[in-house]
């Protein structure tokens, strides 16, 4: 492998490690500033490398061409390790913090993480991840200006609560003097 090949491989690795969906060869070529055919060759070489077919060892991850793009995945034979760990980490019940965050999102949706954090006066990043993972909330749209993601609740939550729509959420009492201005747009609350 020439130093130039190695340079391309490193750049590809940098791109592939942050990509959260398969990246097309064309996109990768643009990103690393290398013609498409060379990128194609380099990707094949990386895949063989990770599979232990070059000089190095076989990796715990692999490079797969899926749906017209390339992406790093956990090597299939190791899926069990990940599944088991994820299962052991997920609590069967939601924590109080998770429930409160869920409640804020339910009543204020669509709402960004930082807006929730402001109301709760704590950082809610990991809780939001848990709720996403549990399918109780979902990403709705990102703000065109700031790019901040807005979250809302799912039909799974409605199902758990036994209601058909968020309109059926009970109105909450306006004990919030200054918090009240945060409720514009929520029917039911305005009505109070």
């Amino acid at each position, binding site marked *: 492998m020439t130093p130039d090949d190695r340079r391309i491989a490193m750049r590809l690795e940098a791109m592939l490690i942050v990509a959260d969906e398969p990246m097309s060869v064309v996109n990768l070529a643009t990103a690393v500033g290398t013609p498409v055919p060379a990128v194609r060759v380099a990707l094949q070489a990386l895949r063989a490398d990770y599979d232990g077919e070059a000089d190095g060892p076989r990796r715990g991850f692999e490079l797969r061409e899926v749906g017209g793009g390339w992406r790093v995945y956990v090597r299939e034979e190791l899926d069990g390790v990940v599944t088991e760990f994820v299962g052991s980490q997920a609590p069967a019940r939601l924590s109080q913090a998770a*429930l409160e965050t869920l409640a804020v999102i339910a009543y204020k949706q669509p709402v960004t993480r930082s807006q929730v954090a402001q109301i709760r006066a704590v950082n809610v990043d990991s809780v939001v991840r848990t709720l996403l993972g549990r399918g109780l909330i979902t990403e709705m749209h990102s703000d065109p200006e700031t790019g901040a993601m807005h979250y809302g609740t799912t039909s799974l939550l409605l199902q758990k609560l036994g209601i058909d729509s968020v309109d059926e959420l009970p109105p909450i009492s306006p004990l919030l003097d200054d918090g009240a201005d945060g409720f514009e747009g929520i029917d039911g609350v305005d009505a109070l």
Partner: protein
Amino acid sequence: MSTDERASGEIDEGGFRVSLSNFDGPFDLLLNLITKRELDITEVSLSAVTDEFIAYLADLGPDENLDEASEFLVVAATLLDMKVAGLLPQGELVDAEAVALLEARDLLFARLLQYRAFKEVSVWFADRITREDARHTRDVPLDERYRARTPELQWTVSLDDFAAIATLAFAPREIPTVGLDHLHAPQVSIREQAAIVVSALRTSGSVTFRELAAGADGPGVIVARFISILELYRHAAVSFEQLEPLGELTVRWVADTWSDENLATLGADYDT
């Protein structure tokens, strides 16, 4: 530019200079010299620094960037603390033991240097955060298939429970503070207290602060008497004598001319 240069450059702009018997230059340089032990802290006259500081504050226009003057807030707060500590030996703003341990001058400089150390290291924080923000980490959502064996979520919250949780979550989470509203401090007139002080001083010529404060009805009155003495000092009507830090403070009447007109304008700064 190093942290040091940046800090001093900024303060130089601020322009607080002191002129002492053994030092003449920017206050920041004075601190630098003390830090590097090129100037003995015990050779710095605290009262001179205080005078210069008050003069500096008086010249500060309203448009001055207070953020840059934050170091001087530390000076001001410390000077005030020392006054309070002298006024109320068991003062709460300063740990009485700390005051006893450190001479007043040491306290001022130790605090300044402490503040400064944190200010300097905050530059490191800013640099690191900027640098780290530029880094990219692998942050990819977990594939659905890995969640397959996740234990089923046990949902035990009823609709009403959920609303109750929402109410709780929306309740303003004020950072708890100790309210001072219940302290209905009666208004104390500095002018009235000054009149009492002036009358006592003109009668005796020289009185200790302890005597002046004796019989005062509550801390507010003592504070007002103390402030009135500072005001009288500004009018060059009194002088002080204190043989040792936190020792007995003797107030002496030195006014050549004094009229009740002076008294009428005294403490006008405190009028609201």
